[in-house]
């Protein structure tokens, strides 16, 4: 991935800004809350200019109190508003864990009141953020029924999924990958579009091995596919895009074809999203499998800070290449 967009291209970060702007223009119930999102434009400058455009009651700088402002967003959502909350870093979502898992997630199931809330959570490593600014917290929420979880990997999906999330009547956690902000680029349609929640995308069609992944790791899988093409191994790369609800149809169909699966994510290995997918494959696709289900993930440690440590921690293209070669042998 190079860093300057070509003519007509936008970055992943710009795609998110566009989605916010367009949804605010389209629906006056949409409003934003978060730390430093107003005059400052947010820690990553995603909301830059929106305060001037929409005023201080639609772009609210909050006190430093995640549980408090997520709870407030839940209340406003129940009253028919469409709050979009920004976590400065996904890591701080833990401070609002209780409101998200106990209130937002269970609300509709318990007494039928919808919570049309979006929480944008900039997640992931590769930026030397250390243990508190690089986390992948999706696993914590993957286990809490009532939440939808999305994690786009391209500008197109970032915009389309955010729009879908804002229009969805449920609490949606939108995991945007910090590493992709200025690195992932693409052209976007002129017209309004959404990427439906719950639909995976086959990023690369291949006959040999299915790589099931999401977020920044999608790009790693595509890189590995290029390397492996020289060995005559054709990877099929599935970008999940949505973690809950999980598009099992696409996953099963692909594995049914290739008979081999590698699950790849940046989150820690144990109890991560990949563990669930591996279990589903073992349960549903046992007859079709021609080799062990492989998982590539970060080791079970916090995200380290120092460069050599972080490089060791994060999955690498080489890990996928090695796993694919091994799997090919079966």
């Amino acid at each position, binding site marked *: 991935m190079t860093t300057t967009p070509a003519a007509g291209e936008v970055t992943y970060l710009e795609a998110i800004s566009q989605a916010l702007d367009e949804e605010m223009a389209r629906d006056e119930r949409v409003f934003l809350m978060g730390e430093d999102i107003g*005059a400052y434009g947010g820690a990553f400058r995603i909301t830059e200019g929106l305060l001037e455009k929409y005023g201080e009651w639609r772009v609210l700088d909050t006190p*430093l109190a995640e549980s*408090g402002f997520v709870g407030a967003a839940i209340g406003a959502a129940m009253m028919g508003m469409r709050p979009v909350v920004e976590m400065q870093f996904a890591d701080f979502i*833990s401070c609002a864990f209780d409101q998200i898992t106990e209130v937002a997630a269970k609300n509709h199931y318990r007494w039928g009141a919808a919570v049309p809330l979006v929480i944008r959570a900039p997640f992931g490593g590769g930026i030397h953020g*250390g243990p508190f600014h690089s986390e992948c917290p999706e696993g914590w929420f993957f286990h809490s029924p009532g939440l939808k979880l999305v994690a786009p990997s391209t500008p197109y999906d970032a915009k389309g999924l955010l729009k879908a999330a804002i229009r969805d009547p449920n609490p949606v956690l939108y995991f945007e990958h910090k590493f992709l902000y200025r690195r992932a680029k693409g052209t976007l349609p002129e017209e309004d579009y959404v990427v439906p929640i719950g639909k995976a995308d086959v990023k690369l069609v291949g006959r040999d091995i299915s790589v099931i992944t999401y977020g920044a790791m999608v790009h790693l899988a595509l890189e590995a596919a290029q390397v492996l093409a020289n060995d005559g191994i054709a990877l099929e790369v599935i970008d999940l895009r949505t973690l809950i609800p999980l598009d099992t149809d696409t996953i099963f169909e692909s594995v049914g074809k290739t008979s081999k699966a590698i699950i790849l994510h940046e989150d820690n290995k144990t109890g991560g999203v990949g563990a669930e997918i591996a279990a589903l494959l073992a349960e549903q696709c046992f007859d079709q499998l021609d080799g062990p289900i492989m998982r590539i993930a970060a080791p079970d440690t916090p995200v380290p800070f*120092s460069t*050599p440590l972080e*490089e060791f921690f994060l999955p690498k293209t080489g890990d996928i290449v090695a796993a694919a070669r091994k799997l090919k042998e079966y």
Partner: protein
Amino acid sequence: MDVAVDVTEIKRADLLQMYYYLRLTRGLEDRITALYRQGRIVGGCYTSHGMEAIAVGYASALERDDVIAPFHRDMGAFLIRGITPGEVLAQYLGKRTGPTKGKDGNVHMGDIKRGIIGFVSHLADNLPVATGVALAFKIRGEHRVVFAGTGDGGTSRGDFHEAMNFAAVRMLPVVLFCTNNQYAYSTPLRLQMAIPDVVDRAKAYGMPGEIVDGNDVAAVYLAATRAVARARAGLGPAFLEFKTMRMHGHSEHDPAKYVPRELLEEWKKRDPILKAEHLLTQLGYGDITLFQEITERANKEVEAGVEFAEQSPLPEGPEVLEGVFADSADDH
């Protein structure tokens, strides 16, 4: 500010020592800023420029076996507790010789042996922890005190309030503080809370509170000494609000355009180092020659630290896997 300060209570040697630590903090952080601008610092970089008197003042008021749970602009406290400039720089450069061996960066460090609770990014997370440290002292009948704080922004979190309440209910030997530097990242105090003084938050928990000039190291030292003495005597927790101004951006990448320039100009005149020099001169404890001498000594230490950090090795990748769990050797 609202409490008269009798500086003659402080010994000359102590004041000069504090001046040295002000200079060491400034020298070290200026060096870190310079390294950051050269692109040699790994990750973010938060400094206490203009706020050095707070950490230097309170850490000087503590005994060796007291414990601190510092805030992210408390470099002076780390230094006074014995973390060397070399170790700090190693931490910033991601080297193995830093207190976290490269696992974490910048001020995110701690050292249980030196009585420093490791900083957690999630602001105010450490305040309930600090009350627990104090609880241990209380249960064991030890006359040790905990000093723990956060910024004005951090005091909005539930964990701050839960810690204040628990400390007050159980009369724990903990001094909680807030460095009110008027902004939380870009958020001005008026969007953080509907009261002008953070100290009012202490009243709700039945805790005595005091507003202190955070740019005056002597005032900080004396207020901390009083609060610590109270807590040590079993009279319970106290809250200190240090009024100050953050003279740099939230981190060194932030030009802080949201702060009016006039406000900075005004606070520049109250620079803690100038203030300390003025006080020392007034008391007849020092003059320009002595100040220069001390500054040079501090800067030399910083340069030695840079050399140490630069020569230190980076950790090796597989070290990532070490230390997730404690073993019996870590038991204390």
